[in-house]
């Protein structure tokens, strides 16, 4: 069994890697890159060489290519020599002018250095000669440019992604010669009263800590980097985007590290558990408040994060669906061809056949007009009521699906020999249904439970869009519309991981519930 599980997990890892590779190939290599300019006004306004340069800067922003520019190269070069005033120096101005002459630019020393440096790194050097009128005047946007570009292969992209995926903080993480006292140890946490794993020399101060926020135990020690958003959430990491609460900043009476042990309190919204190391020397004010260099913080916000919102709605809907769907399915099969069965079947046909968009709007229309429930999430006066319609819209279709399968399995079991035998032995119908048929039929339903709980984390696309729920369901669709390749890859990894985990957990649960089933093929009836 253990060997089988190890094999399954290895294969899951392999397929995860292949999926990410396919997706990277799709979004970085197969999509026509030009589509990002279709609705771009800046691109329309630019012309000639300026437009080409703008295209390259955008490609770099979207993560398609690496791109280096000659002007920033000489800027760096002369800043190192002359400092802030580099742009006044004649050397700099001469070098800058050099590329505007297509016949002589190659003789310039800086140009040669630029070409040599980036060619060695595998870049492709592109020279855009100045575009001029016949009179010799430069056309608008026709300045000459010298650039170096480099398009990553799928494999190197994948390798870079995998390298940065998981990072564990060590006590030698911070490169600061002044910091001599480096350790990772358990200490009493002054903010929660419990114990916390505290580090010095690590990026975060609190590596593992407890507080009153769900899920109560927090890890800063191990960091998973799913990827960085290029456009939708400019430059933010996706893990942060989906985990950070979205509400208002909340200030409370707290003690700065320097105040601990005194009676002094300050009114601040700083989340002291989030502090990270600052390389810069502390200002006087900071020295009064903090005892060490861990001074970079985030603020406490109220409300739920995107993923919490989606999960809350999803999990309530799932629990409701199982609580209502299974008994209904059993009732339908007990009174097969009766009135309950017929009504149930009509409902199942409705859910199976009608486009989900249509019935979600039908639920929305009924809920808002008959029960006066809030329609859009943000407009709700009572926040709790805003959750009602999304939960109902998610639960009702799942109830239909569960009813269908429970009924099917129950009816199949009803015709089997052991039921006839039980009847012949004189067991009551109630007993047969309760202890024999239901238990055998539920086995198949159990398989889907872990999957449906886990996929609550991915949110629901249509439901969240219709009610404008601030959840994670629309992350992928918005990213697709905005060509945010970082989020697309991150979503793929996230979704694939969850779906594979759901299936493996479902199989394990199935084994637990039904001892006859063997996954590894040793014993049991399976092949």
């Amino acid at each position, binding site marked *: 069994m253990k060997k089988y599980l190890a094999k399954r997990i290895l294969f899951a890892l392999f397929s995860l890697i292949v999926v990410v590779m396919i997706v990277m190939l799709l*979004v970085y290599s*197969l999509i*026509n890159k030009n589509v990002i300019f279709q609705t771009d006004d800046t691109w329309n306004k630019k012309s000639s060489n300026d437009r080409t340069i703008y295209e390259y800067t955008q490609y770099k922003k979207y993560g398609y290519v690496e791109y280096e520019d000659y002007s920033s190269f000489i800027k760096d070069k002369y800043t190192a020599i002359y400092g802030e005033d580099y742009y006044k120096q004649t050397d700099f101005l001469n070098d800058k002018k050099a590329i505007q002459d297509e016949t002589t630019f190659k003789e310039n020393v800086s140009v040669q250095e630029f070409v040599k440096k980036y060619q060695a790194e595998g870049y492709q050097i592109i020279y855009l000669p100045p575009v001029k009128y016949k009179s010799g005047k430069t056309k608008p946007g026709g300045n000459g440019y010298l650039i170096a570009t480099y398009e990553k292969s799928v494999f190197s992209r994948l390798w870079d992604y995998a390298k940065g995926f998981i990072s564990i903080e060590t006590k030698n993480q911070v490169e600061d010669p002044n910091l001599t006292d480096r350790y990772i140890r358990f200490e009493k946490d002054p903010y929660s009263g419990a114990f916390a794993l505290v580090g010095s020399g690590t990026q975060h101060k609190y590596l593992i800590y407890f507080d009153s926020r769900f899920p109560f135990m927090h890890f800063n020690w191990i960091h998973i980097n799913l990827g960085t958003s290029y456009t939708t959430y400019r430059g933010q990491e996706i893990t942060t985007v989906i985990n950070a609460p979205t509400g208002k900043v909340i200030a409370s009476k707290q003690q700065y590290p320097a105040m601990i042990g005194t009676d002094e309190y300050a009114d601040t919204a700083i989340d002291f558990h989030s502090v990270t190391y600052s390389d810069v020397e502390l200002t006087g004010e900071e020295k009064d408040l903090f005892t060490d260099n861990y001074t970079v913080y985030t603020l406490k916000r109220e409300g739920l994060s995107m993923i919490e919102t989606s999960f809350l709605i999803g999990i309530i809907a799932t629990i409701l669906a199982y609580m209502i769907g299974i008994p209904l399915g059993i009732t339908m099969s007990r009174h097969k061809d009766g009135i309950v069965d017929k009504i149930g079947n009509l409902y199942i*046909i409705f859910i199976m056949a009608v*486009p989900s968009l*249509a019935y979600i*709007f039908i639920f929305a229309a009924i809920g808002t007009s008959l029960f006066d429930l809030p329609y859009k999430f943000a407009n709700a006066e009572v926040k709790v009521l805003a959750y009602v319609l999304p939960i109902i819209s998610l639960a009702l279709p799942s109830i239909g699906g569960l009813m269908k399968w429970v009924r099917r399995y129950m009816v199949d079991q009803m015709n089997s020999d052991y039921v006839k035998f039980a009847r012949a032995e004189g067991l009551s119908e109630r007993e047969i249904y309760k202890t024999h048929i239901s238990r055998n039929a539920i086995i198949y339903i159990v398989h889907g439970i872990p999957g449906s709980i886990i996929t609550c984390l991915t949110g629901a696309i249509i439901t969240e869009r219709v009610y404008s729920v601030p959840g994670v369901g629309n992350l992928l*669709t918005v990213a*697709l*519309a905005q060509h945010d390749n970082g989020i697309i890859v991150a979503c793929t990894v996230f979704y694939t991981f969850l779906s594979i985990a759901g299936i493996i957990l479902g199989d394990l649960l199935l084994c637990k519930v039904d001892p006859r089933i063997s996954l590894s093929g040793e014993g049991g009836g399976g092949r």
Partner: protein
Amino acid sequence: MSKKKNVAIIENEDSLFRFADKTDARESEKIIAPRYSYWKSVFRVFFRKKVNWIMISLLILIFLTAFIMPFLWEYDPMENVADSKTFNLSPAKAMDYFGGFSFKYCLGTGALGNSILYGIVASSRTSLSLAFICAAINMTIGIILGAVWGYSKKIDAVMLVIYQIVANVPYLLVVSVIVYIMSAGFWSLIFALTVTGWLGIAYFFRTQVMIIRDREYSLASRCLGTPINRMVSKNILPFITSVIVTLLATELPSYISAEVFLSYLGIGLSADVPSLGRMIQQGQTAFRTFPWAFWPPVIVAAMITIILYVLGQNLADATDPRTHML
């Protein structure tokens, strides 16, 4: 004593039975039973239900309207775009504005003064063609490959790996990337829906074929040396006709739903192709203020999908030989 009794019995039998004439050896092999024709029985069972008559006539009506009416009613969403008074008119106001009763405006106008009824008719044609073309492509590829996949153990090992990997690539991503590459349109959407769509069907058939492959009668036929293609076509495929039709019943509506879903997200068909999904998407922004632009396409989409689903399910029931008993 006992001998006498025996003789008496034989004499009795003689009077009851007589020897058959030695005519045709083949004739004597025949068993007399009521004539059974598979497809006749299928249709007999199918048309016994009154619901099916109603559904079939509704489907024919929808088909005729969707495929013939667009020739008579030229749908131009931009025809009233210059006249802002025609925008978002309720049915009563629209007919009032365009002078008396007309079919064209009996469902009101949309956000650009377009006729809702003409839009729905033109859109149903897109949705129906999309559903039938996609289903035809996916089912054909899926069934053929699924049969081979389930039958050969070598292919099974390879295909399982491919399936488990491809099934994990988000469906939305595949569709939108393909639509971006090929630029939005009817045929690129069909390509996007079929490029990986057949895999699920093939996987489903693989399991069905595997179940039947190891049944005793298949084993016997293999021992007698029946070639693989005969095994697949004679032993396995007939057995799963009802499975095929059941799947068709869920596949056909699912493509209409998929188109609605994708259009709602702004992926899929280009703006010049009228589609139910696009109409629903355009109507949903103000579905409480201008309900006539939103509910008719929703109801039509729901009607088409329900009819296809119910008809398919009932046909699947009828194709199951166990229901053919008199």
